């Protein structure tokens, strides 16, 4: 029984930044305060982050931008292209600031971190006060508004975080203590971590609609119908921790860079230009992770939304003789693969690159007839691009012309924290004028 006991009396927190992308933009753009702002998905398609003001005007998550503009009529809406360079930097700062308060931090997504607070609970520290401290510190140090949910398992912490957001009177902090029944009865089943639409309708068919009812189901039934994952979720709702803080981030099994083109493309040269550009991004990631790839997959497709047109999609997998991270070697395979699957009678909307079967340096299987690949040029390319900006130096095949396939990001904000030319400007002239 010792193992069960050790899973009891644990305390976890989930800290989550409200409207993360919009909050990052607002940090460097005080003019956005109090305004309806949305950040758009790649190619400026849909709303992926909304300010409270935009939510209040009825703009929904994932809503196409043209529709959002229609709803608003002549009310002002600021639409920004997504700037993942800035969001990524602020996300790491967010994690670092949380680490100043707690040693067990797990980055769960770009805007959410789990913290384990068991030791604080044991030391009889006031958890609500601690949650306030977290909130105040992230807001003051990084200017980001956050919600903190606390519970005895990660699943309960996530529920608490949902409630902290839903109930404005809680001021962004919610603790689930002993009396879980009253709380979980109010939580719809689809808000539970790990319960997707399929399980939701299965549960609805037996009359289960909220988290409490689910947690009270017979465990055998859950095991049988919802696998061990569903069972863990049920135990977690009952307060038995089944998930630990992953303090070591999982190394990736694959690296994918796939993007829709700004304008559809027809010719093979442009397809090669775009896909080799994505390959360069993927190889940069490979270097960052200090890994080597054994498999390269290339895929291309037409636009599935143009239902009146002929559709085509094809992918090709290249088995690489010896795991590599040499851009030029991979680019060579990429071009040959594209030539093989390209058909001239289609308009292409998207292509993608996947590097998989990733290994560390010590796991490379060498080949007697295949010398060590020389990746020093790639190392230089990756190094220069990391130091300046991505695309500063690139292979000629990725094009110098119009590059109409490039992602549409018409209203992208400056790289506030990664380019000296882009840092915010403090204007102190008006003071002089007043003085005179």
């Amino acid at each position: 029984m010792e193992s069960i006991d050790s899973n009891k009396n644990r305390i976890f927190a989930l800290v989550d930044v409200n409207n993360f992308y919009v909050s990052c933009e607002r940090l460097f753009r005080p003019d956005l305060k109090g305004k309806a702002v949305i950040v758009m998905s790649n190619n400026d398609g849909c709303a992926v982050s909304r300010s409270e003001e935009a939510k209040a005007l009825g703009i929904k998550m994932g809503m196409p931008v043209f529709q959002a503009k229609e709803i608003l009529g002549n009310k002002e809406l600021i639409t920004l292209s997504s700037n993942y360079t800035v969001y990524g930097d602020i996300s790491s700062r967010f994690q670092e600031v949380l680490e100043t308060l707690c040693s067990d931090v797990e980055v769960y997504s770009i805007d959410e971190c789990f913290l384990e607070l068991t030791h604080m609970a044991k030391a009889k520290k006031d958890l609500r006060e601690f949650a306030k401290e977290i909130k105040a510190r992230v807001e003051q140090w990084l200017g980001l508004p956050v919600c903190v949910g606390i519970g005895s398992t990660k699943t309960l912490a996530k529920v608490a975080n949902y409630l902290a957001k839903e109930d404005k009177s809680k001021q962004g902090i919610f603790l689930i203590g002993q009396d879980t029944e009253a709380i979980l009865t109010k939580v719809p089943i689809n808000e539970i971590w790990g319960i997707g639409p399929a399980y939701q309708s299965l549960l609805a068919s037996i009359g289960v609609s909220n988290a409490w009812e689910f947690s009270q189901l017979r465990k055998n039934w859950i095991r049988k119908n919802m696998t061990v994952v569903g069972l863990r979720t049920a135990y977690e709702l009952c307060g038995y921790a089944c998930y630990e803080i992953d303090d070591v981030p999982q190394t990736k099994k694959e690296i994918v860079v796939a993007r829709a083109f700004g304008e559809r493309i027809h010719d093979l040269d442009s397809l090669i230009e775009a896909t080799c550009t994505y390959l360069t991004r993927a190889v940069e990631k490979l270097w960052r992770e200090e890994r080597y790839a054994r498999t390269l997959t290339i895929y291309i497709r037409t636009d599935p939304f143009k239902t009146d047109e002929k559709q085509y999609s094809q992918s090709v997998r290249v088995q690489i003789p010896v795991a590599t991270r040499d851009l030029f070697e991979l680019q060579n395979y990429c071009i040959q693969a594209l030539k093989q699957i390209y058909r001239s009678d289609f308009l292409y909307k998207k292509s993608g690159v996947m590097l998989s079967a990733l290994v560390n340096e010590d796991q490379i299987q060498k080949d007697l007839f295949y010398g060590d690949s020389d990746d020093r040029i790639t190392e230089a390319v990756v190094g220069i691009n990391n130091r300046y900006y991505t695309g500063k130096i690139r292979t000629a095949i990725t094009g110098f012309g119009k590059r109409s396939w490039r992602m549409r990001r018409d209203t992208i904000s400056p790289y506030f924290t990664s380019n000296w030319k882009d840092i915010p400007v403090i204007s102190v002239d008006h003071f002089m004028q007043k003085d005179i």
Partner: protein
Amino acid sequence: MSQAQIYIEKSTVKIPLLNFTLAAGFPRPSDDYLRKRLDPKDLLEINPSTTFYMRISGNGWSEYGIHDGDHVVIDRSIPPSHGRIAVVTYAGNFTIRQIGKVGDRLFFLERDNNLNLVPIEPEGDVEIWGIISFGIHRF
């Protein structure tokens, strides 16, 4: 989606004669004394997670050593206190104020009317964005 498998041969195959390097000679004794070179970041970024950079436009604060075209280092983890110079937001822009303390309360020192004290309020027109920790001036 069907998966076509292709195997691509390299046009040339390099066969290494010796696939390792031989170490010869005596290791340089100075390697033991290698130190990392000085990095100004160590001076300027007391708390790197909360450090930001901005550029100054205008000469309104030159008597405080902050000149047009300078860069300023802002550390948001520094609490506001008497005499500190802060980047603030005002009417949708960034600008600068000095902070003063009278009794237990912090004020902005407005210099346009010979030291006017403006209380610092949480949701006021002027809000503290961060405290300036260093100025970088090009001579």
